[in-house]
């Protein structure tokens, strides 16, 4: 575990010292602060609409940070050849992958936590209330969803040579799942066999990232989600994450480093 944690810390440090995270953060802060300063005729629905836009921005930023940070990890190690002195030490390829995953996931989690904190402060200054548990549940589920995204991006970074192509594929896949996967079963109903069964199989095999979207908790102050449901969603995310990491290990374990 020490080795995995040591690898993860380097990934976090890299994100802290790179500029792209700050660009996204400043952009989100500017847009959130601008939105937060708007008070049109004390209209609650407009405030909610603005909250919705800000949270959408946080979700998009979270995906961009998770995917870009993860997609470049292994290709950059190979390109700069830092992987050689690293794997010449008592590090297994499994530990290397887990360290990269943990680092990207923690780095993304820290970024998302910062976004939610800032958004919460702006919202609290307008609404004069801060439903901490709602924010906590929404942010937790968001982070769990990003765990799946980080894991499949890591798998992609072993399969696809260029980080840009992997990043694009992963971003389109994640956005596609978030927007469309909930409708696949309805589409399947309208199809003839065997397409119907195929689409159903696809529907059940896909990781349903949209299940982790709890933005309504923050926007509309909806009732808290039951904690056992949160635990179940965490388990669901952990299963998919483990599956993608195992697949990544299977591909990477025998791959030549040169």
């Amino acid at each position, binding site marked *: 575990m020490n080795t995995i944690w040591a690898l993860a810390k380097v990934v976090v*440090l890299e994100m802290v010292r790179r500029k792209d995270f700050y660009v996204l953060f400043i952009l989100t802060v500017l847009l959130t602060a601008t939105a937060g300063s708007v008070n049109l005729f004390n209209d609650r629905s407009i405030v909610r609409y603005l909250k919705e836009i800000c949270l959408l921005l946080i979700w998009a930023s979270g995906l961009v940070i998770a995917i870009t940070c993860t997609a470049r990890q292994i290709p950059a190690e190979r390109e700069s050849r830092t992987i*050689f002195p690293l*794997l010449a030490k*008592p590090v297994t390829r499994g530990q290397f992958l887990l360290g990269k995953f943990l680092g990207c996931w923690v780095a993304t989690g820290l970024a998302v936590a910062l976004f939610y904190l800032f958004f919460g402060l702006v919202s609290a200054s307008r609404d004069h209330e801060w439903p901490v548990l709602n924010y906590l549940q929404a942010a937790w589920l968001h982070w769990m969803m990003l765990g799946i995204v980080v894991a499949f991006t890591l798998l992609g970074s072993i399969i696809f040579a260029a980080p840009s192509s992997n990043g694009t594929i992963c971003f389109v896949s994640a956005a596609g799942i978030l927007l469309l996967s909930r409708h696949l079963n309805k589409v399947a109903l309208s199809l003839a066999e065997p397409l119907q069964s195929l689409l159903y199989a696809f529907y059940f095999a896909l990781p349903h990232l949209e299940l982790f979207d709890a933005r309504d908790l923050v926007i509309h102050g909806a009732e808290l989600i039951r904690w056992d449901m949160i635990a179940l969603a965490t388990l669901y995310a952990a299963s998919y994450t483990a599956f993608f990491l195992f697949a990544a290990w299977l591909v990477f374990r025998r791959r030549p480093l040169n």
Partner: protein
Amino acid sequence: METTLSFEKLRVEYRSRDLGETTKVAVLGLNLRVGQGEVFGFLGPNGAGKTSTMNVLLGFVPPTSGTARIFGVDVREPIARQRIGYLPEQTYYYKFLTAEELLRFYAGIFQVPKAQTEQRIDAVLKLVELDHARKRQIKTYSKGMQQRVGLAQALINNPDLLILDEPTSGLDPIGRMKVREIIQRLKAEGKTVFFSSHELGEVETVCDRVAILHQGELKTEGRVSDLLKEHSANLEQIFLKLIGYSPQP
């Protein structure tokens, strides 16, 4: 003398991408032993199979057949690399880290106890004369400084076996002399050094024994002094003769 590293009938093949050629043999049945406390030069022209042998030794490539062992442990086991230090030919480190952070990271991987980590970092940074730049990011270092930080990372775990791939490549004469001094100091401490180099004069000065590889085959192996006596020539002439090079008239 205790064996530090050994190869037995080591064969390394790569799948060739050339049409009509299925495999390319990089190393052909290599048998070699390096004893504890030796400075061993691993020589050969480009494409001789040195890098492939080193890649097997470091666990980057699995052998096609045969075995390679470090301290009696098969190199396919990651634990075989616990007591080694490796310096690659060119320096490749995380440039956003400072030398101190890089060494702390590698010490963490070797699970060096925290109390010892800072002492080791101080010691190796003094040894490679980078103490003054320890808090600067590696991206600001000159080439010589990067090579020295590489040597520092190879020594962080106080290894019993040091594997150096072209350790003086690209260094100025002072840098080369310093690397030579460090190798000799390690030898005096009883460490084993296994290194590949094209600088044959340097090898002749530093090494106890050498092996010359050509087209994947071991051409000769022995003590430097014995080889010089046997061939009545310097190491460069012996090397050229063994690989079949004859200068144009």
